[in-house]
């Protein structure tokens, strides 16, 4: 069922929700109650957008009341003052809000830290001031009356009840689209960006663009809700869209659990009914909201709803079968010679068991004598007074392992960061074949075919082993947001294909038995292998490895080294930063020695070992 067009994975829960929503009004005569339910749906729509934003950027907006208000005012002005037809007013409002949110997102999402919170807060205040001051256009503080109701042909949504069915249908549709988006390649990329932005970029995920898209989408959700609101109540005033409404929305998000779509809906239900309970204590609204927001964050930051669920229902009731159960069912299939790398290690794995069947790239065929793949020319970079790299040049050919060694602080990792685009050199060139990599962002460089592993293993701890692999396979997919939201058949096929490829690659690394386990269950060796395998998903031509055997047992590092040499046979050029000289001297085709940012020697391992400058750098100079 979940493979079908538009149908989300949680379709049973959605169906139940739709039935509840559909039957609820039958037993109700009270119009006031309908009004609250309609407001609830509007709030839930905005909260949905906010959760999408948090899920992808880890930042929250305290300015969504402004987008809500802009959606309402823009369509009210176009539809009433200028007499535009409804679809025109709708398009006008949505497009303008999207443009404004794009302008706001571009500068603020580029920065690290919580600038988005402040920028959106300030934006909300500017917009409220504009609503109040631009009297000829907005009616000022006294409000904007006489907005036409929504209608389809001659059918006007004139009663609360009619609007109820309309707005809940809109909400449910948006809910399905968002659930689908979360359960797709792009949703996975969003979560990856949230957890570890740099690692995501190193895997070719355009994180800045995705963050901007998430922000614009969430603003459009708010504008859609604002449009519906304006044409429902027919009178709007600036007071509705002030900063306190933004805070209310954020409280709903927090109570439901930040980033959880179902939680957001539950939080909205709770907090929309709260003012009704407090009706006789209006002065306490603000204080109550503040205390709820603070209390929930301090005592159960994952939100009330997840906590409630875990207390109320045993784990078997929840959506996924427990991980342990899955893992055992997976391993019971059995039959493979070695089900984990460490087992392979114990049984003294034969050479034949180690092979990378998934790498069938055109460059296969080992080392070639053609021109170098990756070339660095006179790369120079200083941080303030410290000269981290001084005119360093090096080349890496196809299927060649170049070891980069040097004492601590020599500039090895800095050089890797320059190649992968995290740092920009002040002078010099970085070329992949004939293409300059300078000026490209890290994700573009990754997509060009430069993979990377990190000094400290970068895993996504919220993901299973297989999902970690899938993050690496992101670049191999190309279906867009629309396809992901709608779960188009093509997008589903692509997802299945990526999963298949990811499992195949895992199998090559003998980790398929652990595919559905959380990464925390893996040993350091397995994590390092997984990180390497994940980088291979980029189909790299160059792989940058930062201390791959650091922290491993000698026999474990033996296995890892065998994988590295295997990569060489497949024609991948490798830059290896390593302190373990046994490993370096054994596998490296060439060694480049750095000290204090200078390249002090280069050559075959033998030559470098006998170079007096290298000996001096490592052992010091003998006093005579």
């Amino acid at each position, binding site marked *: 069922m979940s493979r079908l067009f538009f149908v989300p994975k949680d379709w049973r829960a959605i169906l139940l929700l739709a039935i509840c929503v559909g039957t609820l009004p039958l037993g109700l005569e009270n119009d006031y109650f309908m009004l609250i339910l309609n407001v609830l749906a509007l709030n839930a729509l905005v909260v949905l957008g906010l959760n999408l934003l948090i899920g992808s950027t*880890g930042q929250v907006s305290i300015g969504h009341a402004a987008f809500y208000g802009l959606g309402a005012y823009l369509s009210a002005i176009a539809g009433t003052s200028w007499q535009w037809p409804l679809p025109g007013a709708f398009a006008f409002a949505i497009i303008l809000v999207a443009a404004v949110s794009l302008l706001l997102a571009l500068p603020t999402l580029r920065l690290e830290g919580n*600038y988005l919170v402040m920028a959106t807060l300030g934006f909300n205040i*500017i917009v409220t001031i504009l609503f109040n001051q631009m009297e000829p256009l907005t009616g000022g503080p006294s409000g904007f009356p006489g907005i036409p109701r929504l209608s389809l042909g001659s059918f006007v949504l004139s009663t609360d009840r009619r609007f109820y069915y309309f707005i809940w249908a809109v909400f449910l549709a948006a809910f399905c689209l968002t659930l689908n988006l979360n359960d797709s390649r792009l949703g996975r990329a969003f979560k990856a960006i949230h957890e570890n932005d740099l690692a995501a970029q190193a895997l070719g995920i355009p994180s800045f663009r995705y963050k901007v898209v998430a922000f614009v989408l969430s603003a459009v959700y708010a504008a859609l809700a604002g449009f519906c609101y304006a044409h429902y109540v027919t009178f709007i005033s600036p007071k509705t869209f002030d900063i306190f409404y933004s*805070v209310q929305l954020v409280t709903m998000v927090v109570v439901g659990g930040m980033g959880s779509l179902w939680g957001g809906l539950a939080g909205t239900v709770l907090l929309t009914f709260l003012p009704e309970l407090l009706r006789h204590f209006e002065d306490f609204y603000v204080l109550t909201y*503040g205390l709820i927001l603070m209390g929930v964050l*301090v005592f159960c*930051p994952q939100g009330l709803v997840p906590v409630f669920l875990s207390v109320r229902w045993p784990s078997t009731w929840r959506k996924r079968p427990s991980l342990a159960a899955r893992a055992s069912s997976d391993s019971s299939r059995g039959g493979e010679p070695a089900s984990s790398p460490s087992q392979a290690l114990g049984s003294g794995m034969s050479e034949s068991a180690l092979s990378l069947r998934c790498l069938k790239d055109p460059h296969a065929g080992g080392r070639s004598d053609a021109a170098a793949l990756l070339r660095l020319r006179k790369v120079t970079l200083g941080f303030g007074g410290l000269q981290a790299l001084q005119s360093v040049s090096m080349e890496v050919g196809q299927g060649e392992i170049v070891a980069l060694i040097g004492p601590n602080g020599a500039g090895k990792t800095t050089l890797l960061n320059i190649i992968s685009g995290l740092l920009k050199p002040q002078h010099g060139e970085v070329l992949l074949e004939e293409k300059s990599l300078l000026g490209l962002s890290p994700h573009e460089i990754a997509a060009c075919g430069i993979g990377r592993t990190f000094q400290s293993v970068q895993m996504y701890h919220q993901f299973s082993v297989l999902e970690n692999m899938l993050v690496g396979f992101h670049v191999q997919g190309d279906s867009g947001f629309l396809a992901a939201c709608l779960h188009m058949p093509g997008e589903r096929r692509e997802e299945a294909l990526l999963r298949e490829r990811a499992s195949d690659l895992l199998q090559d690394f003998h980790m398929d038995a652990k595919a559905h386990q959380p990464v925390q269950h893996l040993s350091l060796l397995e994590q390092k292998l997984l990180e390497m395998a994940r980088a291979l998903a980029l189909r790299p031509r160059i792989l940058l490895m930062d201390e791959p055997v650091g922290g491993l047992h000698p026999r474990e590092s033996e296995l890892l080294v065998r994988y590295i040499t295997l990569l060489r046979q497949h024609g991948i050029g490798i830059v290896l930063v390593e302190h373990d000289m046994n490993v370096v001297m054994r596998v490296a085709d060439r060694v480049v020695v750095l000290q204090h940012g200078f390249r002090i020697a280069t050559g075959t391992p033998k030559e470098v070992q006998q170079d007096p400058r290298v000996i001096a750098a490592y052992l010091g100079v003998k006093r005579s």
Partner: protein
Amino acid sequence: MFWLLIPQFFVSGITTGSIYALIALGYCLIQNATGLVNFAQGEFVMLGAMMMVSLTHVAQLPMPLAFLISTAAVAVIGVALEQGPLRHSRNRDILTLVMITVGASISIRGASMLVWGKNSHIFPPLGGESPIVLFNAAIMPQSLWILGISLCVLGLLYLFFHRTLLGKAVRAAADNPFGAVLLGISVRRLVALAFALSGALGALAGILVTPITSMSYDAGLMLGLKGFAGAILGGYGSTVGAVVGGLLLGILESFGAGLISSAYKDAIAFIILLAILFVRPSGLFGSARVKRL
């Protein structure tokens, strides 16, 4: 005609600018100690002023005593915010902690509305109400007091951070908290100190600004945001930047309000905030940080 107004704009810009500088400095202290944006900073400003109102009007205390008590009280509230909700949060994620300060800010605002009501309050300025005229600008004695006190406080803070062991410890902990712990500095106490200082700075700003603009329970948000805009303008996390940014923002706002439109006065600060994020996010005195992997 226009030329004659420039000194006046300048004087009022410097006056509000020093207030923003004090608030910006409060953000800066907490940012350096914890890496957090403290959204309750503006509420510290409001609380200081409101306590001063109660102590002078209701309790009839003399000004200097009331001033000391209210500044100290807000400092204690600052520490309470840090020792209570922030320290006991189960999740150390920056977003969660920042949102906790948002919650604290809303709670303080709601509680203040219950205590002091929705009306705005005011108390008489220092040094009387007859202005001194200089170069076509009418300067209220309160403005001079604001400038003088702000300068004194900045001087004292400078001495504290550069001449005392405790102040140097704070700077060390801001630079590298882990290293500071290894040297036997109690970073937890320094964080509490940062909250106390920024509470006191906020209260001071609130007490100084109230005779000019009056104060109500909901004014903290706007003042806090402007202080933040000043801090960003100067370069977030830089103390010199906070002071210069605050002053510059005050002057720009005063000229903007005078030359363009006073109705949009409050919007100007945020347009500057967004513009600086767009053009030079590290601010005037900030430097881009390098992240180590």
